[in-house]
């Protein structure tokens, strides 16, 4: 019986922590060093001129990611020259989701001609620090002195499925606010996405 109670409390514990872990608005984000699809290792420190970063937890297989890939490309092309490049990170374990292997990331990056870094969170050490739970899941970081401060978490916009029906460009609005020296008006949004794949 004791064992059963312990088991139940463990289940309850894991359920709540799964949801609440990771960065919240105003937190300092840690840098990472991950393998890019071009074979190089990439850190945020490699972008000395950046004013911040659009970190998007992404992958190959998720239909909601596929529906937003062109928007990620457009965002990078618009905002990288202004100091906010996109960095996409695949957090999935390819043993659980074989379509999200590093080799298939390279194929996807070539097919879509990604202009941004597409990194593999090998060993799944980075996504838990951010508290990413699904793909696509966006974290907008802003440089403040030597720190990278989390300024926006959530969705790219208000219509993941259909770019032509978007009414509110949450992420672009947040970057525009930072460029204007202001805080984003909307700091957290939600969208449906594919849960990050972890071995049981």
């Amino acid at each position, binding site marked *: 019986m004791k064992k059963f109670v312990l088991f*139940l409390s463990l*289940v309850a514990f*894991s*359920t709540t922590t*799964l*949801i609440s872990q990771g960065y919240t608005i105003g937190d300092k984000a840690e840098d990472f060093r991950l393998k890019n699809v071009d074979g190089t290792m990439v850190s945020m420190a490699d972008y000395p001129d950046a004013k911040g970063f659009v970190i998007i937890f992404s992958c190959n297989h*998720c*239909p909601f990611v596929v529906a937003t890939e062109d928007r990620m490309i457009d965002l990078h092309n618009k905002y990288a020259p202004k100091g906010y490049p996109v960095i996409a990170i695949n957090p999935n374990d390819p043993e659980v*989701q074989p379509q999200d292997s590093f080799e298939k990331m390279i194929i996807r990056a070539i097919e879509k001609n990604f202009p941004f870094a597409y990194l593999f969170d090998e060993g799944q050490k980075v996504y838990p620090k951010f508290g990413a*739970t*699904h793909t696509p*899941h966006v974290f907008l970081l802003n440089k403040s002195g030597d720190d990278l401060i989390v300024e926006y978490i*959530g*969705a790219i916009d*208000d*219509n*993941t*499925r*259909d770019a032509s*029906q978007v009414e509110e460009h*949450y992420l672009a609005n947040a970057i525009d606010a930072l460029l204007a020296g202001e805080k984003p008006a909307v700091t957290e*949004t*939600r*969208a*449906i*996405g*594919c*849960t*990050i*794949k972890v071995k*049981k």
Partner: protein
Amino acid sequence: MGAQNPEAKYNVQIYDFEGIRPLLEKDNDTTYVINFWATWCSPCVREIPYFDKINSKFAEKKVKVILISLDFPNQYDTRLIPFLKERQIKSRVILLDDPRANRWIPLVSEKWTGAIPATLIYNSHGKEFYQKVFTYEELENEVLKFISN
């Protein structure tokens, strides 16, 4: 009429969030197990038989499972209906066609970041939200907490 027609059994209704909202707020003697899923979500698909089993095993205990699909509406005929037929799913299935997810996700639960699978279990005594992948045993344990109340 549906009993004579195997096609009709899988005539899944399509609603926007306002259409499904009453199903999340019923106040009666039934325990509702609401699962958000999609055919393209592999951990969701693994869980679907567990939910269907709960629906039949606990029907007499007044447990009702509702499977809310987030499949793209243009895949209704090509993916959703064939999946339900192939797996012989008996639980009620609804297609939620409402792209403004930022508006309705917090109305399901403040704890939900948007990842699927996600599950809501509630009855007139309580409500719990789970952003997680269940094993059958875990799911049954959670349901038992509600029906032993």
